[in-house]
């Protein structure tokens, strides 16, 4: 089963996430990750959805998504060159004597310490899913207290982009 990355532009309207998530649930499609936030336009959000499945399934996912009125544009960018990132925050057990060692590990992954407790340290780290996984595994022996990941966001490389067409940009109105 291949993983596909869909870049989806949706109306920034209440319930749009429920519509998309509900569609995946009721049609039995598995979401690997879903990241959503507004774009440079206040009325449009972008969802980066990672789905696992074969070609016919991904085609069906795309077509079903298109049927949602609030979905404006879908691009399967898997086959294209793209940059993808994920952000993770990890709170790890760190006795005062372990801090230097842990900071050293963090340095390897270019993670930054963002908080310090009497017995914990919190790091942020960005990168591809693989790098984040490796960072997580490196910290696991110290005891991970809490971990939060954003899910993948992605963007096409070079001058290609996934954006509204001029006509779509004009039709700004939506209920």
């Amino acid at each position, binding site marked *: 089963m291949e993983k596909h990355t869909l870049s989806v532009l949706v109306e920034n309207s209440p319930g749009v996430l429920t519509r998309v998530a509900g569609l995946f649930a009721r049609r039995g499609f598995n979401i690997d990750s879903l990241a959503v936030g507004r774009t440079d336009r206040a009325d449009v959000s972008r969802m980066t959805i990672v789905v696992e499945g074969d070609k016919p399934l991904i085609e*069906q996912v795309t077509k*079903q998504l*298109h049927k949602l*009125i609030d979905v*404006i544009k879908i691009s399967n960018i898997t086959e294209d060159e793209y940059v993808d990132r994920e952000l993770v925050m990890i709170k790890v057990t760190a006795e005062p004597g372990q801090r230097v060692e842990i900071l050293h590990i963090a340095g390897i992954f270019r993670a930054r310490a963002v908080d310090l407790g009497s017995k914990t340290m919190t790091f942020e780290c960005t990168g591809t899913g693989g790098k984040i996984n490796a960072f997580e595994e490196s910290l696991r022996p110290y005891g991970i207290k809490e971990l939060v990941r954003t899910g993948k966001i992605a963007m096409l490389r070079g001058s290609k982009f996934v954006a509204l067409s001029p006509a779509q940009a004009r039709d*700004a109105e939506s209920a």
Partner: protein
Amino acid sequence: MEITVAEALVECLERENVEIIFGYPGGAVLPLYDALYHSTRIKHVLVRHEQGAVHAADGYARVTGRVGVCIGTSGPGATNLVTGIANAYMDSVPMVIFTGQVPTIQIGTDAFQEVDITGITLPITKHNYLLKDPAKLSMVIKNAFHIAATGRPGPVLIDIPKDVAQARISFKYPSTVKLRGYKPTYKGHPSKITEIAKLFGKAKRPVIYAGGGVIASNGSEELLKLAEAISAPVTNTFMGLAGFPGDHPLFLGMLGLHGTRYANLAITECDLLIGIGARFDDRVVMNINSFAPHATVIHIDIDPAEIGKVITTNVPLVGDVKLILKELLPLIEKVDRSEWLERIKSLKEQYPLSYNRDSSLKPQFIVEQLWNHTKGEAIIVTDVGQHQMWVAQYYHFKKPRTLVSSGGLGCMGFGLPAAVGAALGAPGRKVILVTGDGSIQMTIQELATMMEQCLSVKIILFNNSALGMVRQLQEYYCEGRHMATNFQFHPDFEMIARAYGIPAYTFRTEEDVVKGLPEVLDSPGPAFVNCIVPPGENVLPMVPAGRGINESVAC
């Protein structure tokens, strides 16, 4: 000039040329009903249960081809609409549903008669709206009617909190819709159209498999022309019935689970399958591996998501059936297919639809008599179950929009309210409801609506004192253990009908039908005919579960 949202809503409906609304009032829709009170152009039909309202709007939409409109209050009013919304969604019926909602400030507090109806109907509407901003009313309604009626039609729900309905706005109705995420494809891709025309030329054994999309696009005439032009036999899905003349020599009847054996065998033998406005539903395809195994598959549909969903398609073509067929017709070259048509003829002779006549009154006989007396000119509304399949098999529909029935959802209780809607949508035409004693008891309260509206619906009840279709399934799949399918108590349906002021009759023999039916059908006013039919009769042929479409059994 400022008016209330409720008043603006009525104004919007008038602009959309809505002539009739089916509904049931309640606390949260008080403002809407108060506004309707002042409308001179919109007729409100008071039903006896919200399910009746939504099914009636459905029946109205199916016979007229227009958007059906219904309204219910918040909470239970809204949840009572749910079955009917699902029904309209499954059968792609254009509909706009209004529900009242508790005041904005109370939303999310589990207030009295509060339900999250937009949440509940998310999977069963084409789109829905919770109207929070009074200023957006006109645009939402404009969008809703547009979405409901265009592309693949479907129901759109608008939930309106009570305080929003009371808010004052300056009214302006938009002339255009702006929906950047919704642009249905109507025109078929020219190169695909040429490709398809070429395939017609090459095929030796083509079959057209036509569904409800033909009727939805008003493409019946073009379908007939296509079938005649390429000399291809036509089979209909249940939803497609009435989209092709039932008495035409090229007609194969319905296919699938209870389809004719000759339709099913034609599918099996064909080398080109032309799916038009149909969705390869499981009741049609049965076992996917033995469905049209030798065929190149063409699939024409307005909904891209239907193409490739169930079976692999060789030539997909997205667009409006009528438009596509119109473009296809001039490209067709006449091919001699007498050999294939001979084969079809012999299949028809070899495996005709048949049932055993005996001293009892067989339901199939009644349907045949209904056909004899109406010749396909009536609007036939059915409920769900065995009677529905017998109508599909033995009534030869002639014109589109003369069959009103719940296909995809298979919703018992649909018939009576849908007949009410159909009769209101087609004044002056004969509306016949064929129903069962199981189905009609689910929505029998709508007899009151029917009488209140002075509708001359002829109700033909197939009374076998059982839930026949489920009983039949138990015969085949539960070794005849009839669990909960034989009614131990049956009401006197004649007395029920009379209690509503409806002339009632009971037919027990073929002779009763032959003598009594013409009078029932030809006399003015409503009628209720209680036909006592044998409980053991099965719908045949049928394809046993798991088997291929070519393996239907006749006993």
